[in-house]
Structures are given as structure tokens and as C-alpha cells.
């Protein structure tokens, strides 16, 4: 059975009693936010909900699509009927038409999550005045007469301000970017559009994955609502088996290794030109293996796939990087991995660096700076050895492994030091 397009130019799409899609399709989009590819474009989903006491607009669209958004909105409401504008997320692809909507609907109240105000002020500077708004958190409500919107705070999915809006009488969850994807299909519903499973997973992996702890916290709040329809801010509207999309998020966000083993994990990565940094790496791993309840893995970066390591790193508790110094820098395989970690959260993991060098040995300090930049803890000073490591040097490497392992397993000795020693 073929499914005709439900999105027509200038026309809203009725989703339920008094609920309309008033967003825009962007089929020409191929690259989003610099980092995301999309095979067939995306959509900016915005919604209008009519109650007996007025209309709510939930999210807007990217500014280039404002005319389409207003054309659809005008089909379902007069501007003086709009009582509230809810922004689940203030990123410009959802707030682009906000300043103009606030001009056209001056009586509407603006509702945002309680993490959003500082972002709002920076976004609507063109209004020239400090915007008035209602900041909401979990359980706060907005009454539209015979129906009620309530709000679920879901921070860091994927900005601090993100929230979901719940329309209880229809079981509709307006989820913002959560459960969305960059997939453009004018049939709109998940059971009539093309196969978009890859887009759904891709979006999770590139947008939500760094925040997976927050994803799990949000799911704990959203699953009990048991929504009958999930209405995200991008991609198909999920009316067929919406619970399966929540279950997919839960599976993708749940750490597997820690649950299985109960051990801490330490990954030792190295690249080595003449075998010196490799010998150091083996010694670091040997030292760490002496620590109980610590599982240690050793990897040569020169012959390996960075993407696989990113997966391992997401699950690991500690990371050690060994790099020789070439032309006063760490070597490319090390940087390739260290520059690929924005997809996962490494904040708070333990890290350390080491390496052999011939002349000046900058690599270790540069890698340590990168680890700190990634918001990791670097409690053990890095270790650099000029050319061939001696047995004493290798023992220092083992001690680095033992010491980092002790931090990982919570058995490190308490240290007292003077600031002057830290220079």
C-alpha cells in the first residue's frame, strides 16, 4: 500500500484533536551543524495545541523556514489567540522564528526550562529588550483551559536547556531533539515514511551519546509516562510503537562492560617508532596489572581502527597514552584518537601520558593538556624518557601503572603536597 504525502505546501497537518504540525521540511540539507550527514534532508518540527483558553505553540523552526512556519501557523490560529510559546530547546534550528513570533504574538507568554534563561538572553538580543519568560521545571504546568501542558526537565539532551512537554489528554510527548533524527519525509508518520532506523541511531550516536548518563536519567522520567505518540523536533513523528524508541535509547545508553565484570578497566594506547615507547607501554601495563580488580588492555595505535577504540574508551575507566615526540609534537595516530573523543563522554575518567623522545620530549605534556581539556583527571605526573628506557625507567613506568591503577580502584594513598612543587 502506498502512502501519500501528508505535508502540503502552506498547510498544517492535523495530528489529533486540536493538535497540528506546523513545522517545515528541509529536503536539500546534506550536512547539519558541520558534523552530521543526512541522506535526504531534515525537518524542523513545530506544533500547535489548541485548548479552550487559547493556543500553545511548541518550538519554532530555523530562520530560513520562518515563512513556511508562519503560513502553517496562520491556518490554525490567530496571533492574538496564542497564549504560550514553549521552547523545548533553544538551539537556532528551533528558535530561529522566535523573535518574529514574539513580535506577532505579543500577548503570548514564553515558557522555557529553568536552565534556558542565559541562552535566551543571548539569542533574542535583536528584540532590544530583556525578554520576559516563565522558567519551568519538573511537574510545572501551563493550563490552556480544558487541557494542560506539563514539563519534564531533561537537561543535556543535548544542551543544558533541553526539556520535554507533555500533553496528557492525548498521551503526546513533545520531546525536542530526543528521539529525533535528520530524516526528511513528507509522509511524516513513522509507520508510513521510509526506513529511517539508521538515521535514528546515527542521530543518537552523534548528538546524545556524549550525554548518555543524562539520557538514562531522562528515560527514568519519560518511560513511566508511556506516551502514545512521541513528537520530536526533527524527523518522523513516532505513533507506532513509541516505546520501542525509548527502549532503543536505553539500550544504546546503558554501559555494558561494567555491568558484566564489576571490574575497573584501563586502556593503554601507544605509538612507537623504534620500540622505546612500546617498551614503556608494556611496563605501564605490567604495573597496572598488579592492581587487583583492574582489567588492563594494551593497544598499538598504528595499525588499528580509531572508531573501535572510541567504543572501548566510552566504557573504560582509565586511559593512558604513549607517544614519542616528533618535531616537538605527539604523533598523528595519537592525535587522531584524541581528536575523535567528542562523540563520547570522557569527563572524569582517569588519564596519564608517557613517551620516549630524542631531543625535547614535548609530546607527554601536550597529551596531558589534551586529557585535561577533555575534562579528565590526570592525577599522576606523565613520564618521559630520553631514547632507550633503562630498567630504572621501566620500573618508573610500572609505578605509573600501579599508581594510576590505585586511583582507579580507589586505593590510592592520600598525598599532601606544597603548591610550589606543582610548577
Amino acid at each position: 500500500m502506498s502512502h501519500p504525502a501528508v505535508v502540503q505546501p502552506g498547510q498544517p497537518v492535523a495530528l489529533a484533536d486540536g493538535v497540528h504540525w506546523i513545522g517545515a521540511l528541509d529536503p536539500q540539507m546534506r550536512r547539519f551543524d558541520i558534523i552530521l550527514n543526512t541522506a535526504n534532508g531534515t525537518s524542523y518540527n513545530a506544533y500547535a495545541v489548541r485548548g479552550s483558553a487559547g493556543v500553545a505553540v511548541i518550538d519554532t523552526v530555523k530562520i530560513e523556514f520562518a515563512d513556511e512556519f508562519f503560513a502553517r501557523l496562520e491556518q490554525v490560529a490567530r496571533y492574538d489567540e496564542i497564549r504560550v510559546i514553549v521552547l523545548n530547546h533553544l538551539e537556532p534550528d528551533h528558535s530561529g522564528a522566535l523573535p518574529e513570533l514574539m513580535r506577532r504574538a505579543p500577548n503570548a507568554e514564553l515558557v522555557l526550562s529553568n536552565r534556558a534563561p542565559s541562552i535566551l538572553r543571548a539569542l533574542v538580543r535583536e528584540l532590544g529588550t530583556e525578554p520576559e519568560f516563565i522558567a519551568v521545571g519538573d511537574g510545572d504546568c501551563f493550563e490552556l483551559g480544558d487541557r494542560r501542558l506539563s514539563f519534564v526537565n531533561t537537561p543535556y539532551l543535548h544542551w543544558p536547556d533541553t526539556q520535554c512537554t507533555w500533553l496528557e489528554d492525548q498521551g503526546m510527548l513533545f520531546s525536542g531533539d530526543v528521539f529525533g533524527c535528520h530524516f526528511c519525509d513528507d509522509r511524516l508518520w513513522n509507520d508510513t515514511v521510509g526506513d529511517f532506523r539508521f538515521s535514528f541511531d546515527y542521530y543518537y550516536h552523534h548528538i546524545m551519546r556524549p550525554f548518555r548518563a543524562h539520557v538514562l536519567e531522562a528515560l527514568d522520567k519519560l518511560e513511566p509516562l508511556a506516551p502514545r505518540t512521541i513528537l520530536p523536533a526533527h524527523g518522523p513523528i513516532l505513533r507506532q510503537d513509541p516505546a520501542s524508541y525509548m527502549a532503543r535509547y536505553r539500550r544504546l545508553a546503558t554501559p555494558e562492560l561494567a555491568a558484566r565484570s564489576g571490574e575497573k578497566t584501563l586502556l593503554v594506547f601507544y605509538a612507537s617508532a623504534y620500540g622505546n615507547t612500546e617498551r614503556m607501554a608494556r611496563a605501564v601495563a605490567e604495573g597496572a596489572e598488579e592492581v587487583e580488580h583492574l582489567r588492563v588492555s594494551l593497544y598499538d595505535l598504528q595499525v588499528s581502527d580509531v572508531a573501535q577504540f572510541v567504543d572501548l574508551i566510552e566504557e573504560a575507566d582509565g586511559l593512558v597514552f604513549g607517544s614519542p615526540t616528533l618535531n616537538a609534537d605527539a604523533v598523528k595516530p595519537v592525535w587522531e584518537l584524541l581528536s575523535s573523543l567528542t562523540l563520547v563522554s570522557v569527563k572524569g575518567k582517569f588519564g596519564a601520558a608517557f613517551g620516549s623522545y630524542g631531543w625535547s620530549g614535548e609530546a607527554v605534556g601536550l597529551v596531558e593538556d589534551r586529557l585535561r581539556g577533555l575534562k579528565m583527571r590526570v592525577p599522576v605526573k606523565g613520564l618521559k624518557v630520553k631514547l632507550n628506557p633503562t630498567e630504572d625507567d621501566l620500573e618508573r613506568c610500572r609505578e605509573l601503572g600501579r599508581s594510576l591503577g590505585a586511583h582507579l580502584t580507589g586505593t590510592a594513598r592520600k598525598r599532601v603536597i606544597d603548591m610550589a612543587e606543582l610548577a
Partner: protein
Amino acid sequence: MPKASVTFEDIDVTVTVPAGTRLIEVSEKVGAGITYGCREGECGTCMMKIVSGSENLAQPSVLEHQVLSDNLAPRSARLACQAQVLSGEIVVRPA
């Protein structure tokens, strides 16, 4: 010069510091888990929990107070890039 001590609870390190030191000057060097964003007291990334000894830190500036308030911070929170050590013993950990 008067001294104070700051303990970073997450890595079990205590550092003796001169009065007037800002936490940002110490925490990264010892490898503590407090993380920084703008380093200028605006973004709130470096929010930390003062476990004890908050009275031994200089009072928050108007800017720091505003950022803490915008981020719904509890009373025990301070920004590590702004907080200045005065004296005594202070124990902190990442928020």
C-alpha cells in the same frame, strides 16, 4: 605569607597554598576532576562542591553569584575559576 590547605577529595590530594590562591591555579596541576570552560566565571562549567571550609574562601563576586544562581546551584557550590582561598582548611570535590 599565610598558608591554607585545599583538599581535592576526588583524588585524595591536599595542597598547601599561599593565601589569595584561586582554586583554578591548583586543581588542574594536581589532576583533580574539576573541569573548566570559559575560565572567566561566565559558563558555570567549573562548579564544584565545597565539602567543608567554605568560610575560608573569599565571598563570591556579583558575577559568580549570578552564574551560580542561573545554574540552580546549591549553597555549597562555588566556581573554581573564581573562588579564592583565604586561610584554614578547605575540602572540595567536583559538583
